[in-house]
């Protein structure tokens, strides 16, 4: 993977205040292609503020963001998505009453014509969704059932598959393994490895240190809105990370 190692996303000296509160102050963050960075920190450390800035929910008060070497200003989450920065939410991801294909293509449905009328091409949605999920080794027996019939982990996989289908370069995963059973957690972690191999950069937020150590290449710790330290996961140990989190 030639892109591996290239800096995909870089945030420099990001500050954000809400009223008088410094949510972030001069925070730096870097993500390479094919890298999984775990963003760790206690509640209120500024993790979600940083994520929201990177995913376009709101702009920083100061600081800059470069994506694939180009300075960007994100107007809204849609802007971030079209550039290839996707956020995978646990519960906000899918419409339960639609099938897998319809969810993967939600908002970008392919059209075809029948009897001269434009109609949604459901067969194509199903086939292409199946192809994407296959390449990620996500085996679903039935793609024509509403996704409510799927397990939490399978839905998570569908959401990730959708992001990948639309050429996401950066995936932000907020607690991707919470509320999942153990086999499902493993499945999601395996999926993260498979995305890595494709050169996708992943920002991984989790409270579960075991998952952080299992999945990430690097751990970035925030504390009270500032960088509290970072370690290559291979060189870090959990006690040290906890100490950085709580100060």
């Amino acid at each position, binding site marked *: 993977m030639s892109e591996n190692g290239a800096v995909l996303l870089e945030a420099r000296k990001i500050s954000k205040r809400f009223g008088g509160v410094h949510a972030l102050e001069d925070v730096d963050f870097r993500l390479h292609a094919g890298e999984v960075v775990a963003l760790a920190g206690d509640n209120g450390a500024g993790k979600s503020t940083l994520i929201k800035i990177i995913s376009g929910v709101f702009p920083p008060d100061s600081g800059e963001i470069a994506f694939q070497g180009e300075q960007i200003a994100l107007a809204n*989450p*849609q802007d971030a*998505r079209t550039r290839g920065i996707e956020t995978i*939410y646990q519960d*906000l*991801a*899918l*419409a*339960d*009453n*639609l099938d897998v294909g*319809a969810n993967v293509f*939600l*908002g970008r*449905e392919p*059209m075809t014509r*029948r009897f001269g*009328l*434009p*109609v*949604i091409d459901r067969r194509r949605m199903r086939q292409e969704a199946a192809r994407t999920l296959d390449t990620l080794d996500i085996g679903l027996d039935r793609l024509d059932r*509403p996704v*409510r*019939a799927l*397990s*939490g982990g399978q839905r998570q996989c569908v959401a990730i598959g959708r992001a990948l289908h639309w050429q996401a370069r950066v995936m932000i995963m907020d607690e991707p393994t919470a*509320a*999942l*059973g*153990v086999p499902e*957690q493993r499945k999601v972690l395996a999926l993260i490895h498979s995305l890595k191999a494709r050169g996708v950069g992943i920002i991984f937020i989790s409270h*579960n*240190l*075991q*998952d952080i150590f299992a999945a990430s290449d690097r751990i970035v710790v925030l504390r009270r809105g500032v960088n509290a330290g970072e370690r290559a996961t291979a060189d870090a140990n959990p006690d040290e990370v906890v100490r950085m989190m709580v100060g």
Partner: protein
Amino acid sequence: MSVTAAPAHVRPPEPRPSAWIAWVASARAWLFLALLVAGFEVWAQTSFQATFIGNIFNIRSIAVFAVAPLLLAIGQTFVIISGGIDLSVGFTMGLAAVVVSHVANLATPVIGDVPGLIVACAAAIGVSIIPGLVNGFLIAWLRVPPFIGTLGMFGVARGVAFLLAGGTTVPVSNDALSYLGNGSIAGFPVVVLLTIAAMLVLHYLLGQTRFGQYVYAIGGNRAATVRAGINVRGVTLRIYVLSAVCAGIGGILYAGRFSAGAAQAGEPLLLDSIAAVVIGGASLFGGSGTIVGTLIGALIVAVIQYGLVFIDVEAFWQFVVVGVVIIISVLVDQSQRKGGRVDE
């Protein structure tokens, strides 16, 4: 911190209903309709040695009976699938009936029957769009709960309709309009043909277009639909306008059928239209429903109403029976939700 102990919040696997239960659930509206017809047939045969469904007059009457509630119901289907409800349709219909009558009366002597009808219809549809726009704006932009927003429009449309009608019914004389209401083509009443046409258009919109897909998506998970970059507010606005336009068409056909516009034209039809949608398998929680289901629901309501008249039951029992059937349908839907949804 161990991952070997399964956390308490693991989602349990949803029970898979057996195939035949799923089939019964998906076909329950059809079965209910068949049972109803059979029941009335048996009653008619045993009590007055007559046929209920074998009689073409009865079939025509049921079809004509079903038209107005069905028109309101197909619009209401979109609203309910999106997780909302439109309580204002009945009086939007009345408003349109009054407007079409007034405008036809003014225009017909000047420009003749057909142009007069066209102008009157355009005016009625134009006016009926207004409550739809207001509903959509209240619900999509101001996040007013649909129940409250459309209840407010129910009052407004009702008041305005009675004001425009001067508190009475407005007789109308336009031959083209009464042809719409009472004419027939090859034995098929024009109102029925027009309603079938409207139904086909809405069936296409709901099942085959992006708009229809987003109606389902909003009802399934509004937040996910927003996140998918869909203009949820715009879609919601269009849903309520569509519902109002259907009510407007209903008002025009009413004025044609009775040669008069009345503010209360659609008053009893709100119940019937919601009944048709939920009996047809839509969930009041949003996310499911079809036009075909609503058609069957409307036929069930019409068969109940016409059948009760046919077997000589006091007319007011119709409301009781339809109300009970609505409640039962919602209970069936809820019980399915608990056990993992099976219908689609």
